[in-house]
């Protein structure tokens, strides 16, 4: 049952686990308030696993280990690689902020991030319901702790409380759904579940109940309406650096398990979950874009923007199956568009938060959109990066967000009849409303007069990573072909196996 392949499949998870434990121990000996050693070791570990995963991913092999409990395929490896890189960027952007606010008394920020990343990795490589659940719990428990990191801060603890209660409920949903599927099919293995359901000997009704609960659980993790209530409060209440962490890499994991659960395991039930996703998408686009326009707090605004974007991503996920018939070309298009969407969303939202963190360092939180007034005069570079991110989130070409929307809309339109075209038109109309609030940030930065004349300064590492990150939003926008091909290939391989 355990062979060489088994070890290979979880190599990077082991690295993360061992290093995570080691860093906890090392951190005990660190007395500096800056936590340089911990920071460096954490980044190093993440860099190593990112490299490892990129290597696996480009080899393109798919192998199963631990008696089919885990799988290593190129979709998972790319997602893990992106997650690790995202996490690195988050920690680089977040460290000055955290250190200013005395959040580095201990190294929990770094070690919890490592364990969170481990949870993400486990989720993404899972090929078994239980492993998915294990990974999910590791991820969410670390994030609850991260949100509560400033334990003497009332809003942060409130946010953590809210997050914890609602998150536990969602985990319950997911677990309940998984157990129903288990009860019906008699197996926890994703491939087996698929076969049993496909054979058609299970009562459809039980399965549908299971699907409803699974989709609800997923919707919570991927911040879809009506399971979104926690999002704005937690984004706003959590320290900005934590909001950045929980808003970025976990989305990749969410996409990963959505693929594993809905596509790999429950594809024969596509006609059922497709409708649910459509409803979630319609509601998310509506709430995310309309309520988003009313926000004056930029973190809340980004929370609503996340809701809207995940709604868009659901449109991609749901268009893989037309009229209940699985079509390989269509499926590849649809899922790769969703993957491209989620990857580019993370790529764009991370530098946006990065700029917020940067401004927040001057002794105040810089959470109101009005705090960005005249940023262009204070620092054209950071204003430019934020501007690129906002236009990208709004979906204006030639920035990367546009191609993400294009890919999803293309998949949607080509997958079905008039109903899907109508959905596409609806999504587009909602995007116009959403564009309003992204534009407002640009407006504040470029058209308004600055409140202070101080220029914005940042440590060299932050400046470098942020510039590269902002440039990527632009460059991948001009030449999105490579990343698209990568997603397409990853999905093709994942579907073929």
């Amino acid at each position, binding site marked *: 049952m355990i062979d060489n392949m088994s070890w290979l499949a979880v190599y990077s998870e082991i690295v993360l686990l061992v290093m995570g434990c080691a860093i906890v121990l090392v951190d005990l000996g660190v007395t500096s308030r800056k936590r340089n050693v911990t920071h460096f070791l954490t980044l190093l570990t993440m860099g190593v696993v990112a490299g490892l995963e990129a290597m696996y991913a480009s080899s393109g092999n798919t192998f199963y280990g631990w008696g089919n409990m885990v799988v290593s395929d190129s979709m998972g490896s790319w997602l893990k690689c992106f997650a690790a890189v995202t996490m690195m960027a988050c920690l680089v952007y977040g460290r000055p902020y955290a250190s200013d606010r005395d959040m580095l008394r201990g190294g929990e920020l770094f070690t919890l991030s490592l364990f969170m990343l481990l949870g993400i990795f486990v989720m993404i490589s899972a090929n078994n319901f239980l492993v998915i659940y294990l990974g999910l719990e590791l991820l969410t428990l670390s994030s609850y702790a991260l949100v509560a990191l400033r334990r003497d801060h009332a809003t942060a603890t409130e946010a953590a409380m809210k997050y914890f209660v609602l998150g536990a409920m969602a985990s319950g949903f997911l677990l309940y759904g998984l157990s129903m599927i288990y009860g019906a099919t008699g197996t926890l293995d994703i491939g087996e579940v698929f076969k049993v359901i496909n054979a058609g000997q299970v009562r459809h009704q039980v399965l549908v109940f299971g699907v409803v609960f699974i989709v609800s659980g997923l919707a919570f993790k991927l911040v879809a309406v009506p399971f979104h209530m926690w999002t704005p409060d937690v984004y706003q209440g959590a320290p900005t650096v934590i909001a950045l962490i929980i808003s970025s890499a976990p989305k990749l994991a969410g996409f990963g398990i959505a693929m594993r659960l809905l596509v790999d395991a429950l594809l024969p039930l596509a006609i059922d979950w497709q409708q649910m996703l459509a409803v979630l998408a319609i509601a998310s686009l509506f709430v995310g874009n309309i309520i988003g326009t009313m926000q004056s707090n930029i973190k809340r605004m980004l929370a609503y923007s996340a809701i809207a974007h995940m709604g868009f991503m659901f449109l991609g996920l749901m268009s893989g199956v037309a009229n209940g018939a699985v079509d390989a070309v269509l499926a590849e298009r649809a899922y790769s568009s969703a993957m491209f969407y989620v990857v580019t969303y993370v790529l764009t939202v991370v530098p946006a938060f990065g700029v917020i963190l940067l401004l927040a360092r001057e002794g105040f939180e810089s959470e109101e959109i009005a705090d960005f007034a005249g940023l*262009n005069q204070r620092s054209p570079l950071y204003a430019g990066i934020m501007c690129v991110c906002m236009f990208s989130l709004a979906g*204006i*070409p030639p920035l990367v967000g546009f191609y993400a929307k294009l890919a999803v*809309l293309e998949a949607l339109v080509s997958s079905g009849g008039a109903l899907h075209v109508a959905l*596409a038109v609806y999504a587009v109309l909602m995007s116009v409303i959403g564009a309003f609030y992204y534009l407002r940030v640009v407006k504040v930065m470029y058209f308004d007069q600055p409140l202070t004349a101080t220029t914005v300064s940042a440590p060299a590492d932050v400046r470098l990573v942020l510039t590269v990150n902002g440039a990527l939003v632009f460059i991948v926008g001009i030449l*999105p072909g490579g990343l698209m091909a990568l997603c397409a290939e990853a999905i093709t391989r994942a579907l073929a196996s």
Partner: protein
Amino acid sequence: MAWLSLAIWVPIAFGCFLLFFSREEHAGFVRWVALLGALLGLLVTVPLYTGFQLGTAEMQFVEKLPWIGHFHLNYHLGLDGLSFWFVPLSAFITLIVVIAGWESIKERVNQYNAAFLILSGLMIGVFSALDGMLFYVFFEATLIPMYLIIGVWGGPRKIYAAFKFFLYTLLGSLLMLITVIYLYSRSGGSFDILTWQQMKIGATAQTLLFFGFFAAFAVKVPMWPIHTWLPDVHVEAPTGGSVILAAIMLKLGAYGFLRFLLPIVPDAAHQWAPLMITLSLVAVIYIGFVAIVQKDMKKLVAYSSVAHMGFVTLGFFIFNDLGISGGIVQMIAHGFVSGAMFLCIGVLYDRVHSREIAAYGGVINSMPRFGAFAMLFFMANCGLPGTAGFVGEWMVILASVKFNFWVGFCAAWAVILGAAYSLWMFKRVYFGDIANQQVREMPDISAREYLILGILAIAVLFMGVYPRPFTDVMDASVAHLLQQIATSKL
């Protein structure tokens, strides 16, 4: 040489380069680099003119490279008679704008010039793209620099205007996006415009596609009744922004009709032509009356733009060669004339800081040289023979009389109304007694202003007296387009 690519990317490269010089003390250097960029941008369009083959409707200067493999998207450029003149026109107007902003723009000079140079490249991209998605990318990308131009250097209500501009045009273009994606999936995975033009499409689909395209292009033109964003934007935009907007950006929409709507859905175009003609005539007559009562100079010229663009769409939808060529000629002429009109307003605004017609009077006394130029442009605006404004109007009126006497009769009102609002405004601003002390002390135009108004004056007169270089280029393509329109695709 890939001259078309150069025409697109030279100004963009210069624009991006300028973004690195944000400090105040670099302003002088920035201006010269911007001028160099605009000049080079214009120069690289010269080989396009000398190398253009007359008498063929084939695409010329074609460049085709794979761009996004996943969608079979190509970087596919080319020019034909329909699009040819807009490329040098864009480069030319950009040069004028860079010179015009030389002294009046003192804040964030680098970003100002960069925005215009980048915008210029993007607009040339729109006119030369032969790939539907490439067209869309350029078409949409123009929103970003224009939004910043209006919002950063605009007037008191600039923010309202910038948002209105962005959201109106974004809404229109996104509906076109769905249309383009639909065509893509229908054609079996091709974004090639020329392929789309060959496709058979059913009647219902044609109608839907028609309105998808209509949404984008009619907002951009802008046609009545979705023109309301234009006066607001013109009033608030800085002079350069107004010039680019009126001279080139409005043409993006009209050009879209020619490149997409007419050849791809000809049957729907025939079916809905009465609607389009009606909307155009409303624009010509009703907006003409609206223009008369304006108190703000910029608003007046903005409404006059709407009316003139109504002429363009009228010409397109009466489906004969005179009408379509007339429409295109009118587009080019309007580029020169409206650009010049907005520059004249800018000259006055720099001196008095007011755009109210009532704030002026007797300008000709203190600025005789300027008055002479302004006179020429006003005459061109009302379509006086011998000026650029005359050629297109005359062609469209003639075409519409051929098409239907009453349509021609209504269209001819444009000339009367155009004369009415132009001349009345000219009288109130330039003639009469000197209204106030400020006007008395206005210095006449500087050498720089003399230069740009002079160049434009030559262009306006040249086009009015000898329009053949303009019409020769488009003849073959217009004939080809008419043939496409006449062929049913049902």
